[in-house]
């Protein structure tokens, strides 16, 4: 095993980690805002990937244009989920925590079924010509362009999220997170903030989905493993923390890649799981979580 192979695998892991981080950021944003875990989060990623595939195959829309279209689409989906389901679940007086979990679980099963019904269960790939196959070589280290592009876009998306948090809206978001009842008194429409939060959280996943679709397989069940990694990433980084999601995503990507290299590719998740259990024991609120 050469040093360049290890470096190549590590960089590949970090690039994948940026996608994990962005998926986790959407989950974390929604959780931080209203204490709800979206168990259909992986299925939003799946929807975004199919949207990218359809845009590419039927309308010949290139990657750069797919990004805003799918992000806007997912924003709409997120707002619709909030308005149609979550806002109602928030009003439930009995067992509201459990209702929220199982509503989003029901939604995830529904979306997987819908995708199977529309596209079948076959694995599909989006072959975007040059972007999908090109590689960059640096000495003996070879990396696919699609993954580098994906990592770069995810970093940009993180920068955008950080900027949003500094705007007027970001402050309203923060205030709503702090005390969701008190904000009404200073004229912030809580419902409006929540639905925008869901929109932005879903749009974030939309961007991750488009970039992932450029080099990963697409299938109705593709979301599950990404969702599980997102839950772990968010728990590692600390629920509600943007920086935590970024750092934890990178760590998860790196650990996964190195476990696959040094132990066994079929056991690649075991490294992540072990890390999760360790953090759970030592620091249950995550690396950057607030008490």
């Amino acid at each position, binding site marked *: 095993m050469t040093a360049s192979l290890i470096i190549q695998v590590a960089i590949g892991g970090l690039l994948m980690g940026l996608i994990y981080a962005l998926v986790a950021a959407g989950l974390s944003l929604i959780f931080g805002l209203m204490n709800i875990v979206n168990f259909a989060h992986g299925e939003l990623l799946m929807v975004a990937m199919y949207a990218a595939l359809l845009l590419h195959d039927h309308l010949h829309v290139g990657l750069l244009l797919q990004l805003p279209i799918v992000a806007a689409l997912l924003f709409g989906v997120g707002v619709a989920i909030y308005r149609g389901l979550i806002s109602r679940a928030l009003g439930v007086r009995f*067992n509201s925590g459990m209702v929220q979990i199982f509503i989003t679980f029901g939604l995830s099963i529904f979306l997987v*079924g819908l995708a199977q019904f529309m596209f079948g269960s076959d694995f599909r790939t989006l072959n975007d010509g040059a972007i999908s196959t090109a590689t960059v070589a640096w000495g003996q280290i070879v990396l696919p362009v699609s993954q580098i592009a994906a990592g770069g876009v995810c970093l940009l998306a993180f920068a955008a999220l950080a900027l949003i948090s500094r705007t007027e809206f970001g402050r309203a978001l923060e205030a709503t997170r702090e005390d969701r009842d008190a904000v009404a008194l200073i004229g912030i429409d809580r419902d409006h903030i929540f639905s925008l939060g869901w929109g932005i959280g879903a749009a974030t996943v939309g961007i991750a989905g488009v970039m992932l679709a450029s080099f990963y397989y697409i299938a109705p069940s593709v979301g599950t493993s990404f969702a*599980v990694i997102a839950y772990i990433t968010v*728990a590692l980084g600390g*629920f509600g923390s943007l920086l935590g999601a970024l750092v934890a995503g990178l760590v998860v990507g790196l650990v996964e890649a190195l476990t696959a290299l040094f132990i*066994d590719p*079929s056991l690649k998740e075991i490294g992540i*799981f072990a890390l999760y259990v360790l953090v*759970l*024991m030592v620091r249950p609120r995550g690396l950057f979580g607030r008490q």
Partner: protein
Amino acid sequence: MTGAAAHTIETRRRTQLLVGAGLLVGLIILPVLIPSPYWRGLMVLVLLYAGLSQGWNVLGGYCGQISLGHALYFGLGAYTSTLLFTRLGIPPTIGLFAGGALGGAAALLVGWPCFRLSGHYYAIATLVFGLIGLLLVENWDWVGAAEGITIPFRQQSWIDLQFRIAVLPFDYAMLAYAALAWLVAWLVEGSRWGFYWRAVKDDSIASRSLGVRVFPSKMAAAAISGAITGVGGALYAQYIGFIDPPSTFGLSLSVLIALPAVVGGVGTLWGPLLGAAVLIPVQQISIAKLGGAAGGVDLMIYGGLILVLALVRPQGLISLFGIRGAAGDAVVENG
């Protein structure tokens, strides 16, 4: 608690026992009246999930700790009894107790780090522990890895839980399982543990200040819950005759185990049975009618049903009969 209130609870619990006995007699007669193997097979599954979900309900319902990793205990039960049978020739009627014991022990092991977490944090932690089990079994050659284990047919006997025509005996085996799970739930509901759990569920900080030992209470609920689930796994393995990692350790199974209680009425005695009686036929019939050609419609119906029921009947279908959750009742009776 006043004497009158205690008396009301006693009467209510006796009525529950009577209704349970009546229902048991009805369910003993039912498979004789329905000769179709299809319907008898459906009854097997309904009773299996009623028992499993009753077990989940002890921890998730009464104690309020929403586990999304119960497939771990199910899978351990299934693999334990199967391996004891195929490797050592120990009959599954003994193996299922070993499976239950291991399920309960695993629930304690998972509970130890996880019970410090609350709400969604706990749910996600259990989900991850379930997946750790799945991953390990998938990569463990000695237990068949991803290919699973086919259970060879040894002889027609109740000791081995193997039958040439398997459906009717399993109606009764699962009925015994569901009835015992129900009885355990009935017993613990009225015990001191039952009151502790409801106190923990409602407000663990307040209950601690009142002298309830929160952590041991949760551990007790986990052990009972995991043991019931493990026994169910062992019975499932004998019924199907084949086990593999996704069907016994999968994440979707953890959800399937929880759903009947959630849909029927979480923290109630009858919720899991009612939920299983509604959900399992819907799922099975939609798979049979719609699963093949128009793949996916079955999942849309199932997911949609869960979503709608959770939204419009958060207290569970049981509330249609005017029965509330255990916590709600306790408050009323004490007041």
